[in-house]
């Protein structure tokens, strides 16, 4: 019986599940309890919001409200009572469920640094995770000239790029020797750092922070190498941790995340977990695509559309796409096993590509900068389809090898059978015969053969052939 579904969390995963259930109709009652006070929004667009290119309204997602979906933003679930199948909320309500879905997401990690202790961060120090975080960053960034980002992973770089786009000078401090170490290799990360530098983002690598000193006027970050960096704003991007408090308090099996099976069920079969808070087959995801795939499976199971639906994790593609940056990374870059490796690097233009192929399938790829084949590479990897025989097309563009045949340098070199006019199917030989039979101008040849009368694209070629015929000895041509 799944007549009453309660979803805890109105983030990318929870909102998606509500939409999936809504789309499938039926008369079940779906209650979405979102701790955040606003509409569901697209977290991926927060860096664009930081960049100032869009307003808050532009990150709102379509909501599945009405028709059996009760959407309650600003309501925090404080406890799950599994015995009588209810959840308790901070506004004193108690809501019964037949099935409960935890989509509580994850929380930004605040690193244990002196100056960052306690529950309340200094005003000028903000994590980058939620819309409210974004608002706080923007409030501080207004009037600021410089910013520091602690953490050179995907989110940190997105924040850095967004702030740089607002005109701030941004420094990224990263404890590891190269950026986005989980997705990139050192060479690719070096090209990325170069690209970021061109966008106003400096990187400080292989150095950890030791202390934060913040006051009303600014923030100072002390580094392990003895340097101190000062800025108007410090953004923390030191990773996230699944929000499992509710699940743990309810006695569900929890490791790093809430443990779920292939149907996303927790240790209580009436409770599922999806998205960042879930741990499936030992893995946390942290990306939208798997969260949405999980939402779909839960919807299929709960609505009975496909009671046997199973979540099958697919290899993740990490995509960083912002003005001036185009990065796609997939698979394990550290994979040094057997197989082929393709590389292309043009650091001066910020382009780097490295692809690994085994058994005709892509196993990993890093594409940075202008890689015209990026769409093809992403699809081949995602679908596990065989790579092209001509590997160059994966580096140089999808249409490689299919370019139109270059026109012959001179009509003399064109074979007679070559089609000059596609629309009217006129060969070079037919044009020559026409000339021989007395047509001496382009118009006369066109009128007789109809070459060039369709799309008109071959008019120059026809004129070229007529010119050539009038130049060469007509006896020569006739012979």
């Amino acid at each position, binding site marked *: 019986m799944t007549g009453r579904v309660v979803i805890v969390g109105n983030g990318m995963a929870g909102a998606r599940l509500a939409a999936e259930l809504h789309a499938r109709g039926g008369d079940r009652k779906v209650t979405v309890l979102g701790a955040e006070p606003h509409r569901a929004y697209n977290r991926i667009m927060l860096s664009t919001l930081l960049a100032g290119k869009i307003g808050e309204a*532009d990150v709102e*997602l*379509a909501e599945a409200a009405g028709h059996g979906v009760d959407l309650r933003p600003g309501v925090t679930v404080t406890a799950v009572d599994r015995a009588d199948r209810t959840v308790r909320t901070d506004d004193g309500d108690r809501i019964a469920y037949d099935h409960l879905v935890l989509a509580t997401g994850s929380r930004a990690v605040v690193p244990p640094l002196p100056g960052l202790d306690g529950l309340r961060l200094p005003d000028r120090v903000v994590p980058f995770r939620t819309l409210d975080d974004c608002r706080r960053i923007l409030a501080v960034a207004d009037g600021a000239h410089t910013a520091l980002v602690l953490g050179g992973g995907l989110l940190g770089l997105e924040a850095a790029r967004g702030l740089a786009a607002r005109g701030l000078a941004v420094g990224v401090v990263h404890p590891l020797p190269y950026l986005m170490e989980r997705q990139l290799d050192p060479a690719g990360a070096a090209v990325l750092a170069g690209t970021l530098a061109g966008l106003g983002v400096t990187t400080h690598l292989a150095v950890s922070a030791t202390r934060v000193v913040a006051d009303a006027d600014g923030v100072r970050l002390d580094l392990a190498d003895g340097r101190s960096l000062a800025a108007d704003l410090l953004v923390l991007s030191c990773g996230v941790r699944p929000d499992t408090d509710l699940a743990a308090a309810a006695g569900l099996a929890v490791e790093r995340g809430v443990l779920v099976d292939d149907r996303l069920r927790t240790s209580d079969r009436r409770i599922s977990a999806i998205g960042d808070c879930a741990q499936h087959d030992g893995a946390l995801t942290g990306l939208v695509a798997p969260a949405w795939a999980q939402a779909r499976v839960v919807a299929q199971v709960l609505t009975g559309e496909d009671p046997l639906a199973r979540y099958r994790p697919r290899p993740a593609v990490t995509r960083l796409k912002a003005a001036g940056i185009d990065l796609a990374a997939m698979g394990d870059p550290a994979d040094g096993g057997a197989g082929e490796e393709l590389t292309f690097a043009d650091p001066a233009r910020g382009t780097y590509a490295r692809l690994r192929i085994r058994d005709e399938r892509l196993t990993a790829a890093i594409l940075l900068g202008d890689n015209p084949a990026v769409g093809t590479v992403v699809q081949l990897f995602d679908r596990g389809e065989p790579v092209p025989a001509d590997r160059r097309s994966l580096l140089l563009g999808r249409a490689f090898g299919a370019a139109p045949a270059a026109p012959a340098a001179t009509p003399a070199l064109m074979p007679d059978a070559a089609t000059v006019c596609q629309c*009217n*199917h006129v060969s070079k030989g037919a044009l020559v015969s026409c000339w021989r039979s007395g047509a001496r101008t382009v118009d006369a040849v066109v009128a007789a053969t109809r070459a060039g*009368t369709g*799309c008109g694209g071959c008019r120059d070629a026809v004129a070229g052939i007529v010119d050539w015929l009038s130049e060469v000895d007509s006896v020569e041509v006739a012979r």
Partner: protein
Amino acid sequence: MTDGARTATRPGREPREVATHCPYCALQCGMRLREEDGRVAVLPRQFPTNRGGLCQKGWTAAELLDHPERLTTPLLRDPRTGELRPASWDAALDRIVAGVRAVQRGHGRDAVAVFGGGGLTNEKAYALGRFARVALRTRHIDYNGRFCMSSAAAAGMRAFGVDRGLPFPLADLGRADTLLLVGANPAETMPPLVRWLAEQRERGGRLIVVDPRLTATARQADLHLQPLPGTDLAVANALLHVALTEGLVDREYVAARTTGFEAVRRSVTAWWPARAEALSGVPAADLEATARALGTAERAIILTARGAEQHAKGVDTVTGFVNLALALGLPGRPGSGYGCLTGQGNGQGGREHGQKADQLPGYRRIDDPAAREHVAGVWGVPADELPGPGVPAYELLDSLGTPAGPRALLVFGSNPVVSAPRAARVERRLRGLDLLVVVDFLLSETAALADVVLPTAQWAEEDGTMTNLEGRVLRRRALRPPPPGVRTDLEILAGLTARLRAGATPVPPPAGEEDGGDPRAVFAELRRASAGGPADYAGVSWERIDERDGVFWPCPAEDGPDTPRLFVDRFATPDGRARFHPVEHRPAAEEVCAEYPLHFTTGRVLAQYQSGTQTRRVAALRRAAPDAFVELHPDLAARLGIGDGELVRVVSRRGELRAPARLSAAIRPDTVFAPFHWGGAARANSVTNDAVDPVSGMPEFKICAVRLERVERP
């Protein structure tokens, strides 16, 4: 003497010449026809759309006039031998009327159905709709335009309140700074249109083409987006997403001229480019470049065609591109806009005047009481006696001969045995009918199954009007009468109506019956019937068309203006505003799987037209494109061990086609393509999916799942 038949004298000694239009596609290129010593020559003509150009199909169109396979006598199926035998008109018409009566007596009026075509003139389309509703009194009429324009039509109706392929003159294409073609390949389907694309690029405009194949058109583009078939809607939503994030949305226009934007804005929030990239294979950077090129252009035009429309989500896909156009403030801005490229010659007019299951002349809805009242008044029948809406083409075809479906079918200007999806099944349905009547001038694959075949006139032998892809009403002019023994469609309808009238059911006389179906009289009645409707022809006269290279509808008054450009001040909705509709990408009706691992898509080649009934019989076109083929990528061919030119079999859950392989790097390695112009073993529609769009009834011609096998030659 049989009723209405006439004896034509020809050839005349004096050379005759008329200015008319090509019989084939919706570009309706102007041409002149000249008859001398009985031979008909096609000559160029300056007309605002083709500017003197013609493709090979147009140049060779006259070859069919005196073709040896031309039908010049009615054919009746001999019940003993099962063969089609020549018969008199009287015998043929009597057989039809007797068959219709028997079926209707036994199974009700709706047991007779009519199937029309997008190549019929406005007069014929109108007369056919009237014949079905008034003479046969059946609700079952639909036409092959359902397979062509219905998705764009439905999307246009719901967004703009009216459906006219191009709401602006074709010449606007030449002046567009950015032109986006989605699923359109005019370099092969309507070559003279490419002159406008060339002009556009010469002026410095950018051409962007969305097509899973690197077509002749895509090769000319500044940017080619090559999505996986069936993902155009994701591309559209991502383009609008980029337009939003890049600040390209025309907020003033959206506020002043549209409704419903907020819901669309929130729905495309979920379509960030990288998501669409993973689904479609179109690089996020190309999506961004496309949105920017459209959003920053002074004049930008977005056009869709069958590639985007012939899907079970065709209406939503077109709506996605309409949403994009509206968000960018294009429709109604002179030089900018959204349009669709109509396919068949009179695909536009053919859907306006009553051939469609749910429509009455003037693009009126048959379920609208006021519309019924008006049209019934023109027809001289009580409104409550007009039948209600029928069902869309495929549903109609698939119900034939079944317990709930019609048992008799009259086909005018269509060849569904080749052109319908899941064609083997449609063929079985047709064979199960009590009575199949086909009106054609050649023995098409469908005619070959008929109980009665009626020979009809060709384009050079009849007068009438056509409405081209711009909504421009044109004159088709007769060069000479039909050959002896051949009647026009209007004469055939008049003859059938007269016979039905002689029976028990009172049927008002059709327009011009006294002349055996005079097209001018029919058009006069069409004008009255369309008056006040969305496609208002009331002010269009043949004389006015003659004076000025055609008349753009709506044109309500003879002394008032016509409308080359729609939407300049208001949209055709009750409040004058265009409507946004949120649309979500969804998978194809049939997705690839282990057993059927490849995508299959269909389309056209330059030298053939539609089901090929005509063009396959023209020698020059047969030489240019003699046979069907299966296009596949060399990588795929290598994996399957298929060599260029080897016979292959494309197999879907519904059937198979056999044709030689043609290797080409112009197609994605996960997709195979075949042209749909051939019947028999090479029939592409044996393979296609009969899933239809829930709104338009458009079948999913453009994507299904197949496997490919090499055929071992014996």
